[in-house]
């Protein structure tokens, strides 16, 4: 789109662009740099030392594990949900549709509170889990549930519109060419939604890595055991372990910037393919 405007646009343009850049610069970039400086202030050596600490490694490992769980569960079930919401017609579909967005409207601490009232001391489901000998609260199952919950909408929201836009024509064409529904799903449908799925999964990852409030409440915060990276940072701040907090926070920030660039790349790739092709 070429840039055009009417009137004395020259000054207006400069002022508006300036305001936008200044605002985003001060609000986003400045704090980010200040964090980086704090972390790398003493050079790279202490940075590496912190990363070699067992409690830090365990926390990063726990975050990776929870993220993988959320990606796998929400990748598959989220895609299936998108199918149900786009393709099927049934009573109560609107309610189901509205439910998908609920995790976005729920405060992370509320999610933690819910899990505690279900699985915590005197929780509603506690008799069942105790009878089965499962340790849910203050252990990784509750943390996994919290992570999966807060990331549930991403894949559904990204895959749904792609599925809707794609329609069923390509699948029917595959049927007329002799492909079974199974083959059609893997050869036609899945490749058709792959960018939506990749995008949704990456968002899921970013959100899972950064999840803090819900996990904090249900983790119990046992160093080296039930701590995620974000919970570690919080405890380190409380314990005046500034170096540890800075380093892990920086690692998290860098990971999210990496994912962000990946998202941008995917958006551009997807954009190139978004025109109707057939």
């Amino acid at each position, binding site marked *: 789109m070429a840039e055009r405007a009417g009137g004395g*646009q020259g000054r207006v343009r400069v002022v508006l662009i300036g305001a936008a850049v200044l605002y*985003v610069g001060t609000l*986003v970039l*400045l704090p980010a740099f200040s964090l980086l400086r704090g972390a790398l202030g003493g050079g790279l050596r202490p940075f590496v030392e912190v990363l070699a600490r067992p409690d830090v490694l365990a926390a990063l490992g726990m975050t990776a594990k929870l993220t993988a769980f959320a990606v796998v569960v929400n990748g598959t079930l989220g895609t299936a949900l998108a199918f149900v919401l786009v393709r099927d017609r049934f009573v109560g579909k609107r309610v189901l549709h509205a439910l998908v967005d609920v995790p976005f409207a729920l405060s992370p601490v509320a999610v933690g509170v819910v899990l505690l009232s279900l699985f915590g001391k005197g929780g509603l489901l506690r008799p069942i889990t105790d009878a089965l000998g499962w340790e849910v609260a203050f252990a990784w199952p509750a943390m996994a549930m919290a992570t999966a919950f807060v990331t549930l909408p991403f894949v559904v929201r990204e895959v749904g519109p792609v599925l809707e836009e794609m329609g069923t024509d390509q699948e*029917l064409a595959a049927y007329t060419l002799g492909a079974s529904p199974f083959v059609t799903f893997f050869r036609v449908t899945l490749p058709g939604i792959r960018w939506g799925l990749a995008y949704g999964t990456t968002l899921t990852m970013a959100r899972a890595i950064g999840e*803090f409030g819900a996990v904090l*409440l249900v983790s119990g915060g046992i160093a080296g055991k039930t701590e995620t990276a974000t919970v570690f940072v919080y405890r380190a701040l409380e314990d005046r372990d500034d170096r540890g907090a*800075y380093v892990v926070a920086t690692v998290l920030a860098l990971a999210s910037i990496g994912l*962000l660039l990946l998202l941008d790349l995917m958006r551009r790739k997807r954009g190139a393919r978004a025109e109707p092709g057939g």
Partner: protein
Amino acid sequence: MELSEARPTGRSRARGQPLGKLGLRGAAATYLLVMVALPVATLAREGLSKGLAELGRALVHPVARGAVFLTLETALVMAAVNAVMGTLIAYVLVRYRFPGRKLLDVLIDLPFAIPTLVTGMMIVTLLGPRAALGQLFEAAGVRVVYAPPAIILALLFVTLPLVVRTVQPVLHELDRADEEAAYTLGASEWTTFRRVTLPAIAPAIVSGALQSFARALGEFGSVVVVAGNIPRRTLTAAVHVFGEVESGDVHAASAMSLVLVTISFCVVLVVSARQRGAHG
């Protein structure tokens, strides 16, 4: 493939539902119900377990009431600033081409990607009592960190994408011919924006602002780090919930959560009702 080999398969054909597919769909729907409906029901049950009167009592406690008011106040201020600045940024991104535009566009999403706890730390390292900038403000007699301004700053950071990303596509879809028609009729850029563009994007701005408001109500990670959490002064509702859990009062935590969730839900419902209305 020969036709004569074809096997009749009864009434279930290409359009029929194979069992596997049905099973997967059932699993998906069940997953959603267990994961989302159950928690909401649990929250409602716990929050109301001792009756409405008790819920009210939990909320009129000065600390709780202060937390709710502070949360609403800061969220409101944030939403207003966000509406204006988000619209301005969206306008600049859609209408102007300038060096660094791509970068600006990508930066808008950064707050979504960065863990909120890390956001809080960023603000403290920049404006905290030990930071140069923080000491500058301190000398000028302005308290930023561990005070409401830092809460608003943190909320602005985490909700930055919401207004921009809601307004941007609408502005993009907007027919430029409308604006050009106004120019040919002699309207200035400002008049054109106010009379032609703004009315068209106003619903999106309101939607985005409401979404950021709802999001801010429950914000925890960034606020817990920057606010200082002094009861009745800088303790927000979400942090209050955390405190109640820490001190073992899950019931009070549930009550406050229920209030937060109810307000968020109402806002989200308004947003989605507006969106559905806008689509016809």
